[in-house]
């Protein structure tokens, strides 16, 4: 992506902006050591923001985080002798705070959601700027500090609240960022109290230094979050690919069923009708040919049926795992017991993954493990579907060696789940899949023939 040079330029300009601001601070008598820490905090936001921006270029979150790197240094210009720099430094000193509030509220998707969040950001931007302007004009700092403390307390409520109202999928993404934000908020809140209550030295310096370390939590937490965000995005795209493939397989099976299978089945009946018409006494050669054709056709229909079943089992679409797992056991080459405590429906890709895991594990048990019995168990633990297939075979299976289970492990992982294979030599094999199902449930089909409107009537409905 061509914005690499842009990001480097922003980094260089931001660093220069920060260095110049620290020069003004030390020139005005600030402790060089504190200036160094202050510089590093600003650069941490800038660098963290730019790194995440590069990784996730379409998400505005990272532009805001990079901008905090600039905003952090604005207040340092307040002691400048140049009047415009001085005024700008004072009035815009809380740009970083406004951007921080925005950053925390737009993460992870880069949007301000809800009137409440938008209001808080607007109040922060207008209020902090206005109270700083008041300070510039009158020297009164209390209104700004009180507003800052109020906003900090509001954020201490709003930030954990985000975790509560977030979707389950977003919750994991939010956790590190929210933890980091709380650390920073406490540090910032304490620093404001230090100034409001005019806490004397040396405690004052210690607490202000603690704030500078505390605000480092946000860039760290958010950069960790950006990695998680990238992982999550990749996982969701894999899940979509699996879903699309499943949908395509269902369509193929349906087309086979409605098309070729119906025609061949009908042809089979037509052949048998012709054979009946011929009777047993006439044209024995033709009769033999028709019988042979019927047999061949029957074999073809069987093969097509196996193929369609392998592409996507219709029983899974129609009845879910509750109906499909016993069907698998019935067709298994070794006696198989199904213990299923699962009678609800899940997202089609979840059902398909569980079904194909069970199918493949049973096939392996029969083919490679020399097993004499197998069992399938399915249960729901919390928001996770747990499916396990056990056999009493020789064990020692190596899942990495070309087994179809590797592809299934990918399929399960794409749904955020995990496939495990335990196969100690002599101890049988257990294949277990755990698949999260939270939010993926489908309402049970409620088609009731008695409730539907009567359709087309039979043509000749009389005896």
């Amino acid at each position, binding site marked *: 992506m061509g914005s690499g040079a842009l990001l480097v330029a922003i980094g260089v300009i931001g660093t220069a902006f920060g260095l110049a601001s620290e020069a003004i601070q030390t020139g005005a008598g600030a402790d060089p050591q504190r200036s160094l820490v202050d510089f590093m905090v600003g650069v941490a936001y800038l660098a963290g923001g730019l790194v995440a921006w590069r990784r996730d270029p379409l998400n505005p979150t990272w532009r805001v985080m990079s901008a905090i790197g600039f905003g952090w240094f604005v207040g340092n210009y307040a002691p400048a002798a140049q009047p415009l720099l001085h005024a700008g430094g004072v009035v815009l000193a809380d740009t970083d705070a406004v951007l921080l509030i925005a950053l925390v509220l737009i993460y992870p998707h880069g949007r301000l959601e809800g009137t409440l969040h938008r209001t808080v950001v607007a109040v922060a931007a207008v209020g902090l700027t206005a109270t700083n302007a008041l300070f510039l004009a009158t020297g009164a700092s209390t209104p700004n500090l009180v507003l800052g403390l109020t906003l900090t307390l509001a954020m201490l409520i709003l930030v954990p609240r985000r975790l509560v109202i977030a979707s389950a999928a977003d919750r994991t993404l939010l956790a590190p960022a929210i933890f980091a934000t709380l650390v920073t908020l406490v540090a910032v809140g304490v620093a404001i109290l230090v100034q409001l209550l005019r806490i004397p030295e040396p405690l004052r310096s210690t607490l202000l230094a603690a704030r500078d370390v505390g605000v480092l939590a946000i860039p760290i937490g958010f950069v960790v979050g950006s990695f998680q965000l990238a992982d999550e995005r990749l996982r969701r795209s894999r899940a979509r690919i699996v879903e699309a493939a499943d949908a395509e397989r269902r369509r193929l099976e349906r087309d086979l069923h409605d098309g070729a299978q119906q025609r061949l089945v009908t042809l089979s009946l037509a052949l048998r009708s012709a054979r009946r018409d011929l009777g047993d006494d006439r044209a024995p050669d033709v009769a033999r040919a028709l019988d042979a054709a019927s047999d061949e056709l029957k074999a073809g*229909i069987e093969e097509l049926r196996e193929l369609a079943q392998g592409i996507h089992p219709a029983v899974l679409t129609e009845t879910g795992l509750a109906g499909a797992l016993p069907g698998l056991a019935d067709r298994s080459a070794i006696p198989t017991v199904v213990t299923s405590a699962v009678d609800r429906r899940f997202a089609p890709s979840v059902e398909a993954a569980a079904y194909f895991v069970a199918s493949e594990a049973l096939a392996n048990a029969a083919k490679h493990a020399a097993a004499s019995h197998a069992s399938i168990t399915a249960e729901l633990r919390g928001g996770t579907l747990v499916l396990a297939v056990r056999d009493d075979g020789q064990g020692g299976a190596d899942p990495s060696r070309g087994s179809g289970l590797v592809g299934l492990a990918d399929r399960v992982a794409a749904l955020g789940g995990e496939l495990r294979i335990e196969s100690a030599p002599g101890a049988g094999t257990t294949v277990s899949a755990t698949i999260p199902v939270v939010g993926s449930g489908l309402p049970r089909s409620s088609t009731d023939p008695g409730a539907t409107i009567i359709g*087309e009537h*039979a043509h000749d409905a*009389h005896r």
Partner: protein
Amino acid sequence: MLIVDDHAAFRRQARALLERDGFTVIGEAIDGAAALAAVQAVRPEVVLLDIGLPDTDGFRVAERLASLGSSAIVVLTSSRGADAYRTRLDASPAAGFIAKEDVSGRAIRDLIGLA
């Protein structure tokens, strides 16, 4: 006999074959709702019922017929195999299942125990 299937070609061939095999086909229906109406209207002795119907499935129709007190003997059929349906077949009031390509007068008589 009533034939319930949404594929016209199958209904036609099944009807031709079963009539040759001595059944009197007194009606055809293309979906579950039409099947319920037809059973009540023409009172067939046997219903050849496809499992995959446009508005519902054959199992539900069979259950519905049983709950309505119909005396019709239900024979389920499908172009899919019986294996996939075994558990539901065991629980169904239907007399049994015959794969579509195996449908014949004799297969139905064997299944329902008619002479």
